[in-house]
């Protein structure tokens, strides 16, 4: 078991290494002088030279790569080209709205999607199954920001239930926090529910066709017991797997949703950095997002140990 966990942890390290390499090469492989590109069209030669020294662009590539990695390992993610503020500090100040939105979304989605998927599989071919399937295709097909604007125009502008945009910290009180986080959460939830409900249904269907489900019926157990005790338990592995994979989707979705609802989170930070070509910020955010993704999936790999005895006793 510990062998398995160690193996997973060590497997995650090269993945992060490749992420870093990709992010690193992205700038260096850009045709032309990266410093000139980052400085923009109106830059003076002095400004370009400053950027070049700040990013160490004159060193050989491998020196640049390793000194960059070494810096990050010591907590030095560089400084913003725009404001000169340390990137880490900028990221830290934007964490709260993003984490709030991600957590509310995941919680709500799982609470909605898993029962929906289970019911759809259980009642395969019925009206409710078709409804869930349609909902999941729609969730995939409508751009997140369109959903967001529909929410705003209906709930905020038409019904005036919620403020249109903005964010308040949960430390300012639960009500103002909820008022502003509800619409973004609902927006992003539709996307995530689509993903999870669909996979839950597929895995559930597969498991309901397994021999041990037939055995459970042959034992004279009730429908709900077969479903809860035997099917759902086995279904937990594919469900949490997709929650992990869907994390990438959430991160992308957060970037868009924050722009729609004007939440001052990491997503907004990224978009602003992209528009200003503030590359140190861009690469730090990408690395951070990927790190979160890799760690979440690592935790899920480790959760398999709890959920699946075949892995536990490997």
């Amino acid at each position, binding site marked *: 078991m510990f*062998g398995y966990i*160690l*193996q997973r942890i*060590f497997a995650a390290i090269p993945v992060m290494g490749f992420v870093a390499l990709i992010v690193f090469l992205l700038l260096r492989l850009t045709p032309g002088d990266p410093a000139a590109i980052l400085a923009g069209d109106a830059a003076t030669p002095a400004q370009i030279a400053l950027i070049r020294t700040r990013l160490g662009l004159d060193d050989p590539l491998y020196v640049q790569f390793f000194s960059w990695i070494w810096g990050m390992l010591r907590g030095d993610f560089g400084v913003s080209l725009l404001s000169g503020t340390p990137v880490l500090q900028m990221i830290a100040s934007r964490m709260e709205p993003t984490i709030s939105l991600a957590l509310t979304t995941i919680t709500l989605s799982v609470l909605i999607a898993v029962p929906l998927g289970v019911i759809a599989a259980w009642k395969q071919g019925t009206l409710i199954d078709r409804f869930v399937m349609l909902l999941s295709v729609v969730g995939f097909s409508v751009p997140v920001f369109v959903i967001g604007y529909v929410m705003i125009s209906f709930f905020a502008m038409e019904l005036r239930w919620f403020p249109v945009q903005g964010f308040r910290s949960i430390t300012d009180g639960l009500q103002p926090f909820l008022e502003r986080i509800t619409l973004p959460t609902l927006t992003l939830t539709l996307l995530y529910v689509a993903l999870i409900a669909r996979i839950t249904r597929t895995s559930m269907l597969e498991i309901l066709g*397994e*021999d*041990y489900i*037939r*055995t*459970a*019926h*042959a*034992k*004279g*157990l*009730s429908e709900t*017991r077969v479903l809860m*005790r*035997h099917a759902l*338990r*086995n279904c937990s592995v594919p469900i949490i797997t997709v929650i992990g994979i869907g994390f990438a989707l959430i991160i992308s979705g957060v970037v868009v949703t924050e722009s729609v609802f004007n939440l001052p989170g990491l997503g907004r930070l990224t978009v602003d950095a992209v528009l200003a070509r503030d590359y140190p910020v861009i690469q730090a955010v990408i690395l951070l997002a990927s790190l979160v993704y890799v760690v979440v999936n690592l935790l899920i790999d480790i959760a398999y140990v709890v*959920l*699946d*005895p*075949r892995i536990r*006793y490997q």
Partner: protein
Amino acid sequence: MNKPVLDIRGLRIALDGRADQELVKGLDLTIQPGETMCLVGESGSGKSITALAVMGLLPKALKMTAGRIELLGETIHNAPAPKLRKLRTTAMSMIFQEPMTALNPVAKVGRQIDEVLEAHSNLGAKERKRRVLEMMESVHLPEVERIYRSYPHQLSGGQRQRIMIAMALIMQPQLLIADEPTTALDVTTQAQTLSLLRELREKQGTAVLFITHDMGVVADIADDVTVMKLGEVMEAQPTEQLLRHPRTDYTRELLKAVPSHVPRPPRADDNAPVVLQTQALTKVYSQGGWLVKTRETVAAKEVAFTLRKGRTLGIVGESGSGKTTVARCIMRLIDPTSGTIEIDGTDIATLPPRELKPHRRKFQIVFQDPMRSLNPRIEVGQSIIEGPLNFGVPRKQAMARARELMTLVDLPASAVDRFPHQFSGGQRQRIAIARALAMDPEVLVADEAVSALDVSVQAQVLRLMADLQAKLGLGILFITHDLGVAAQICDDVIVMQHGVIVEYGPAGEVLATPQHPYTKALIEAAPGRHWDFANFRPFSESRQDA
């Protein structure tokens, strides 16, 4: 007379309830208390579907269209779901073919048995556990406390089936339905499981509906036999009556096709040239890598044998014996760890691919699974000529040869243009043989080549292989788990256990007067070995004749 335990009258089951898609066509069946009834048939006979119908577990697509099923005098085929649930395990239980997939992989086996008591009794947790452990002991599981807490993947196949049996019988039902319960097990485990079923039946007085395709098992366990073919009952008789005096041609043919465990008369050892010889052939699999400790599994150790032109060498053994590993090493589908493989005088064990290619022509293989051994996307003729084309035979000539080969394996020459799905399993296995022969090999490796076939088809393919060998002088390496098949086709036999050869000699000696205890155990365990099916009498009587 007592009320029968199970009484089925005029049972009809159809796909989607359509009359033109009937899978069971008017089945009658009666089982008396304490009786063991075997339901025998080849694939597609409808025997398993019948069992599921009794349990009320038919898949959604299948509908019972007519008939009546009575359990202990009560009509159950139209009983509401809650009532059926109540009857399951208390009045009727079922065990399945594949004990690995029939148990929930993420639940402890003890709890899975316990669940039956939970659902059907009012006992407290402590009492339930006591009963479960008791039941586990009565199916002869060792260390019941430990096994109670084990997961299915930690148990052996035989132990898993014992768990299934414990689960099925803990409420002491009147009827046990066993759907090919020993087919997935090795022969020694099968024998133990069958004797356990016999013992429990005597102790509990349970009637058994035993579904099987294996006449050997029938001879060993059944009181009465019902023979089915394509959804229809061919005949039903007491076991000995049926084995001695089958009423229908179908049953007669079925019995004749059962390979006898008495080795066929040996062929003269004519010192023909050696076509295949291995020395100290060893395959070690190592798992893990840096971080995780390396685990080494010796799949085959120091295997040495000689195969001569025109003769058949059998390798028999149970799963995990290493027999298939040896076959795959010889075909160079996997690389042996050490040792030599001489084909026609050249050691091919370590040849790199480029140098190996010219030798490939000389040794060919036929696999077990007829569904997967031909590429479903290309015409069978194209599959047959692929090899010859690789060796520079002109396409036209190769195609003409392919047609010849089709006739040689008793298929029409024109069938080369058809796709694999248009053939039955046995036909595909013939085509696979034709494909192997297209290379004019000197050695043919048959890796469980008839194991997936129904017994009547199996007999035909075996006959075909013998004919071809006589015509073409092939040396055949025949891998099988079935001692009967080995006895019928092999000149010499190797018995393997845990990767090692434990006995090697002429088939007549090894199978008739085995020396090694493992060989003895294997032969002892073969079901129905006392019965001479082809001559409709027990061997004891045959010997008196002679």
